[in-house]
């Protein structure tokens, strides 16, 4: 591919290099974007059959990129995958644990410092969901803990032969936009084991886009940057090139802050509280939201400051995108090696398998990802086949195109307005004629049937004229809006840079992550302690278990509220809930008495009201 139109001198490769992003990593990160060639050479190729058996197709050292593209007949539900780390033997794991004093804490040894406890930043329900999620790891397939440590070792061994910082780029053109897509391959994602995150998996593919357009004079202008961030898609991912508050630029290079371990990209450095949704709980969340809405808005019982805007049925995690580690990009400590995916190589188009260990995790988070073109299940990946839709740009024309489209639309509507004027005048003329005839028929009983038919015709015509007038009125409003928009566009004015963003991801403010040590400690132990005391209750007072549990939860909630300075609000909420239950008990117990009482009161009121009205009437007549 080469550049079309008035800038033929710039090749796609040069375009990629001109806008290649700068990535700032967090201190403690060990896995950086690198080449796939050496990774694949260090992998073995496997098939996981539907019956649960694993079959090695090619051993480590025998796999090449060409092998990945080879067509293979696989049974349904079989998964083809690479394996970077061999199944860790128990002795190897034990030796490592003894030598390093445990398999966790690798990032800390590399200089990473954890932030303040993520659990202290969220409420109880989120903590319960988090505890359940942690417990599911025992039942779900997951990447063994030692794998991350061995992956680190093997990655270091590869890098000892020469470090490479690589991205794979492609350039596409769609609806006036020129998209530059940068793909970054990481050998391992150690978010869970190294940075207290959600998951671990071998291999990681992340992407960043830059969208350009050709201006009226033919020059290429960058307009949007889009950083991939977990499973988010759409408008919220996009930042405008002139959005100085959100998008950092060094020359023509956008700057991304990479989440430690997860490799998600952020626009600003800091610690992000993110929510990882659990698929089975997605259905519960709307019900909870409805209840919350009913409580806060319908019966106006006030909002809770701790849960506002937070999905309680998602696991809260802190993403560390501090940007205080290695920097890669133009003018940084390390520079990029660029690989243009043109034409798309067979490993990209034909290998639908996973780029690392298939951990048999039904949720998917612990399974390695597929390549840039595919999802884990082999279906096409949205960010590859529909990049405009992925970035929410499918509805956004380029700036010059927008003016052109608005002008065209304006002309079409103006023409339609003229047609409407003519039609309305003609029909009004007809309507007046019919009206005059209809009036003339008044007082002639012999013309009654004709008069009725005419009446119907007038009615139909009147409705039609009304419709035309409504359309004309709506068109006037639309024309006015278009004219206003065109005026702004022609004078170079654009919408505020954040206008398209619904949920802005912002790093946590210092006051949001500053908690007293006691609060942190309480947040860390509360759910476990609750479970222990519950078990004790079950053993000691089994006949009062439900009541005991309710009292226990209430006590824990009150203690928590003291730590968070929300004691008064919590007392109010609990008391209101008890009052509602008590009210329901009373209504249930005295239902018929209440109905009879209400009817009696209503009857007495009606008598009093009517007598008062009657007396007032007689007084005014007397006066």
């Amino acid at each position, binding site marked *: 591919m080469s550049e079309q139109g008035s800038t033929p001198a710039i090749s796609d490769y040069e375009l990629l290099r001109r806008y290649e992003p700068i990535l700032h990593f967090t201190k403690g990160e060990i896995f950086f974007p690198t080449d796939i060639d050496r990774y694949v050479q260090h992998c073995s190729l496997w098939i996981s059959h539907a019956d649960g058996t694993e079959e090695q197709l090619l051993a480590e050292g025998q796999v090449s990129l060409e092998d990945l593209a080879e067509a293979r007949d696989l049974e349904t539900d079989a998964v083809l995958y690479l394996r970077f780390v061999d199944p860790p033997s128990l002795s190897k794991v034990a030796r490592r644990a003894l030598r390093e004093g445990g398999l966790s804490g690798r990032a800390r040894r590399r200089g990473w410092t954890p932030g303040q406890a993520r659990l202290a930043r969220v409420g109880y329900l989120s903590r319960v969901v988090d505890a359940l999620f942690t417990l599911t790891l025992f039942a779900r397939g997951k990447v063994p803990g030692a794998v991350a440590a061995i992956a680190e070792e093997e990655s270091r061994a590869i890098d000892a032969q020469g470090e490479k910082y690589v991205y794979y780029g492609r350039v596409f053109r769609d609806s006036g936009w020129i998209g530059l897509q940068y793909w970054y391959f990481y050998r391992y994602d150690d978010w869970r084991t190294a940075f207290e995150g959600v998951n671990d998996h071998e291999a990681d593919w992340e992407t960043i886009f830059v969208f350009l357009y050709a201006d009226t004079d033919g020059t290429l202008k960058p307009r949007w940057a889009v950083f991939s961030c977990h499973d988010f898609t759409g408008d919220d991912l996009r930042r405008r090139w002139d959005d100085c508050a959100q998008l950092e630029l060094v020359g023509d290079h956008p700057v991304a802050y990479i989440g430690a371990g997860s490799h998600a990209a952020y626009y600003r450095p800091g610690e992000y509280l993110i929510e990882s949704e659990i698929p089975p709980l997605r259905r519960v969340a709307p019900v909870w939201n409805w209840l919350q809405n009913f409580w806060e808005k319908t019966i106006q019982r006030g909002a809770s400051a701790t849960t506002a805007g937070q999905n309680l049925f998602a696991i809260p995690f802190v993403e560390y995108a501090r940007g205080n580690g290695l920097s890669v990009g133009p003018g940084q400590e390390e520079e990029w090696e660029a690989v243009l995916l043109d034409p798309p190589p067979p490993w990209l188009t034909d290998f639908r398998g996973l780029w690392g260990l298939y951990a048999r995790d039904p949720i998917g988070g612990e399974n390695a990802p597929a390549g840039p073109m595919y999802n884990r299940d082999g279906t096409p990946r949205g960010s590859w086949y529909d990049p405009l839709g992925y970035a929410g740009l499918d509805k956004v024309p380029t700036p010059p195109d927008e003016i052109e489209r608005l002008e065209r639309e304006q002309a079409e509507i103006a023409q339609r307005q003229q047609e409407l004027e003519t039609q309305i005048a003609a029909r009004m003329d007809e309507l007046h004629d019919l009206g005059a005839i209809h009036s003339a028929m008044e007082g002639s009983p012999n013309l009654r049937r004709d008069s009725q038919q005419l009446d119907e015709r007038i009615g139909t015509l009147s409705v039609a004229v009304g419709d035309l007038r409504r359309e004309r009125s709506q068109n006037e409003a639309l024309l006015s809006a278009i004219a206003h928009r065109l005026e702004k566009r022609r004078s170079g004015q654009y919408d505020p840079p954040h206008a398209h963003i619904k949920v802005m991801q912002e790093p946590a403010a210092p006051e949001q992550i500053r908690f007293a040590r006691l609060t942190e400690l309480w947040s860390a132990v509360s759910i476990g302690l609750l479970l222990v005391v519950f078990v004790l209750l079950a053993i000691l007072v089994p006949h009062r278990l439900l009541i005991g549990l309710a009292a226990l939860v209430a006590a824990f909630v009150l203690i928590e509220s003291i730590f968070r300075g929300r004691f008064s609000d919590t007392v109010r909420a609990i008391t209101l809930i008890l*009052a509602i239950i008590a009210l329901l008990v009373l209504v249930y117990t005295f239902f018929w008495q209440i109905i009879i009482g209400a009817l009696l009161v209503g009857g007495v009121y009606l008598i009093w009201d009517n007598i008062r009205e009657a007396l007032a009437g007689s007084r005014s007549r007397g006066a």
Partner: protein
Amino acid sequence: MENLKAPVRRPPAVSIVVLMFILNIIFAIFTGVLMLYELGVLGVPDPLGVLQALGGTYQGLIQLARIVIETALIVILIVATIGLYQLRRWAWTLGMLILGIGLAFNLLNFLRGDPDYVLMLGRVVAVILLDQEPVRFAFGTRPGAYE
């Protein structure tokens, strides 16, 4: 500097709740006196001696504990009532806490088959009154409230 804080009028709902709390105090004092009378503490020349004698047995200790709790409850009720009357912010929380605990016991007794509907209704009414927006505003427990 001129004090711009406007004086806050006591909402009628607060007066009603204060009245209910006073009735509660009278009832609690009456119950306490009755308890002391049953224990033989009242109307004897040496009530302290009777109390000391109570401490000697297990049952007596339980009775003593009941006396202490009842006395503490009356003191807390009096403090809350005075606070509510003076529109103190802490009194609103204390009042809601007392009502919440009372309702919890009401519901517990209902489940045990020993309901006290009158008390339950009284507490529900008091909670509704205290949770009125003008009341919360007067106590400063709503944003923008007078403090």
